[in-house]
């Protein structure tokens, strides 16, 4: 046992349960939201599931408001109930095919092409099933495509099979998707250039982005036997994090969102986008009609005193050595001295609690840890004028 752990056990804890980085929901045992948030969001998802239009939802909140945590909660708790397969994107890039690139890399080329190939060759009658017994495995089949003629034949066959199964109708899209399968033998992984239109050996259809993407979504939905596919796009506006967006890039950003919504309207694609208030406002200024299509918008409310208490209790519970309820090793009134601005922000709150435990160890404080200690931690992390 390390010295730090020995000291933590003095506080009745196995570890400091408040991650200092406080981004997302990594290593959180209980991924639940404050009850009022959950109730509101579940209602919105119920409406989304029943709606005939685009299944799009915006989660709006400032930095540290809990956007990533909510997306993780949606991915873990909500979407599986609706039989929706979800994909999480962080800072995906402005161009539409950047999304395709990220998506296909998440799925993995070999896995998706194998599943697609098996779906296309699925025998649908006894005779075909008998033949299928002698049909090679995907890997073996790839091995049979020794020369260009055989590969071209396979591309033709696959294109026709996909057309028959209603995956796509456009010849270029069908050809590119077939090549995606056939050329897996040469390279069983994706490269960025695969998703750059006009690049040599590109696997995407030029100027057919929505149709191509729709086909991909259809494929994913069918191979996973899901009722829908969901894209969780975290802080989409963070594309502007490291650079200034030119006029073209700003246009590409809104075009990508618009195309995603177009696909969502035609296919069972759920778009859940988290953004800051300014991200939403600027997107609205760049393209008002686009934002109007996001009819569902959840603005993350600031935490109330009870909700802040609940979050601290939720994090402490699995880290306490002897179990128990409440916010031990903190005194029940430990959060009372926090500024409203700190108590209402999940990230600030968790960072302060993390630092309070550090201070308690440093000062060799006894349990219960007082409100004054929490205030000291707050003043260290967020110095400012005296509390009003």
């Amino acid at each position, binding site marked *: 046992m390390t010295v730090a752990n020995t000291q933590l056990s003095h506080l009745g804890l196995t570890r400091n349960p408040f991650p200092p980085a406080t981004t997302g929901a990594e290593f959180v045992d209980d991924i639940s939201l404050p009850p009022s948030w959950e109730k509101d969001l579940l209602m919105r998802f119920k409406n989304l599931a029943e709606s005939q239009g685009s299944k799009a939802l915006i989660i709006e909140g400032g930095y540290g408001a809990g956007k990533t945590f909510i997306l993780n909660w949606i991915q873990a708790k909500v979407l599986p109930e609706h039989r929706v397969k979800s994909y999480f994107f962080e800072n995906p890039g402005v161009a539409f095919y950047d999304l395709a690139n990220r998506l296909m890399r998440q799925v993995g080329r070999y896995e998706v092409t194998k599943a697609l190939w098996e779906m296309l060759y699925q025998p649908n009658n006894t005779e075909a099933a008998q033949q299928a017994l002698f049909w090679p495995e995907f890997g073996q089949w790839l091995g049979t495509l020794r020369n260009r003629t055989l590969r071209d034949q396979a591309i033709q066959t696959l294109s026709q099979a996909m057309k028959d199964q209603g995956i796509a109708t456009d010849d270029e899209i069908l050809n590119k998707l077939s090549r995606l399968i056939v050329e897996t033998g040469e390279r069983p992984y994706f490269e960025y250039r695969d998703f750059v239109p006009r690049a040599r050996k590109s696997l995407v259809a030029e100027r057919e982005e929505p149709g191509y993407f729709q086909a991909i979504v259809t494929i994913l939905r069918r191979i996973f036997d899901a009722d829908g596919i969901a894209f969780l796009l975290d802080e989409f506006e963070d594309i502007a994090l490291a650079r200034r967006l030119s006029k073209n890039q700003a246009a590409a950003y809104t075009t990508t969102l618009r195309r995603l919504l177009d696909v969502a309207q035609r296919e069972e694609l759920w778009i859940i986008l988290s953004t800051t208030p300014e*991200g939403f406002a*600027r997107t609205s*200024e760049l393209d008002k009609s686009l934002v109007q299509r996001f009819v569902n918008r959840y603005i993350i409310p600031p935490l109330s005193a009870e909700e802040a208490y609940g979050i601290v209790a939720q994090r402490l519970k699995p880290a306490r050595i002897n179990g128990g309820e409440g916010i031990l090793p903190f005194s029940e009134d430990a959060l009372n001295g926090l500024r409203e601005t700190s108590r209402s922000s999940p990230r600030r709150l968790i960072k302060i609690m993390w630092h309070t435990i550090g201070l308690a160890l440093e000062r060799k404080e006894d349990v219960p840890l007082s409100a004054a200690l929490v205030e000291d931690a707050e003043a260290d992390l967020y110095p400012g004028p005296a509390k009003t």
Partner: protein
Amino acid sequence: MNLWMRWLNFRALRDLLLLVDKHPPGLRANEIETLATEEGVLLRRDGRPYAQSTHYHHRRTLVRLDLLEKQGRRFVLNYQNPEIGILTATTKLGEELQVPEKEAFANAVLRNKDCYDVFFRNFLQPQEAACDATSFVERARPVEVVIQSRGVERRGDHDSDREHYVGRNRWKQVAIRPVGTTKWSLLNGVDAIQAIHFGLRSWCVDQLGFLDIMYRPNGTYTAYPKHIVPRMTDRELAVEMFAALDFAGDWATIRIPDCALTTGIKQHVSVDQAKGVLMSWLTDHFGLVAGLPTRVGFITAGLPDSQHALALKSYLRSPSGAYLSHLRIHRMLSEHMQNGGPRS
């Protein structure tokens, strides 16, 4: 349309009037130029004299504004104009413009027919004339101004049917409309941009202070009337701004550029004064007001480099240097409003 308005220094205009006032028989154009240069009335920042055209624009503006009149080849003060008395009250050259002088110039600009036709008419109801700065500020409505410019390739010539490339020009236009309306007043050409954007905007906003503007990230700006001298203290303004907050539960969230502009328009105060109140809330009531930072790249998305600083100006900058787009304000701030409000 007569688009003669250009960038000018109104302090220099006042000093030119003083120079002419010292010479009752009047001064010729070249005498005004010589005196203005010798007395340091019209000099570049580095002390070099201006070109003749700058002297001409200043002199011509005084004539257009009915502050000077030409008698033969000499320029004399137009004592018929009531503003002359105010503008020649001081005797010392080079002093900053005082409020009465700003008001006098504002009145002269507002009464000028050309200025009214190309610009101020958009602020007022149809057929409504502007008489003076005070009534203009009370009656005028905000307008949106768009400066449009793009490259145009000209093809073809008059002498031949065969089209060929003859050069690349820039097409320029200024569009103005009252906020909330749909009909734009369009002024085409480089002169329009010189007259509206570099001329009247600079006169009214930067020098005379009876208009203020806020640049929008889409390249347009909103111009609205404001009092030359603030009629509200920061404390009074803070109370008004707090009363306008829309609370959801204990918190109200405002977008700083929108709040500053709305307040400016409603209270006839400058954007900077409104932003100053928000900044004082943030710094003086740290525990009740939180700023939401935003990415600079997102504020300036799609804008050319030349407009980045203008777009960023609408936002608050926190002491740590981050640009803040929104403020979250707790209801308990009201107690501090009742107890005297933030510092004024």
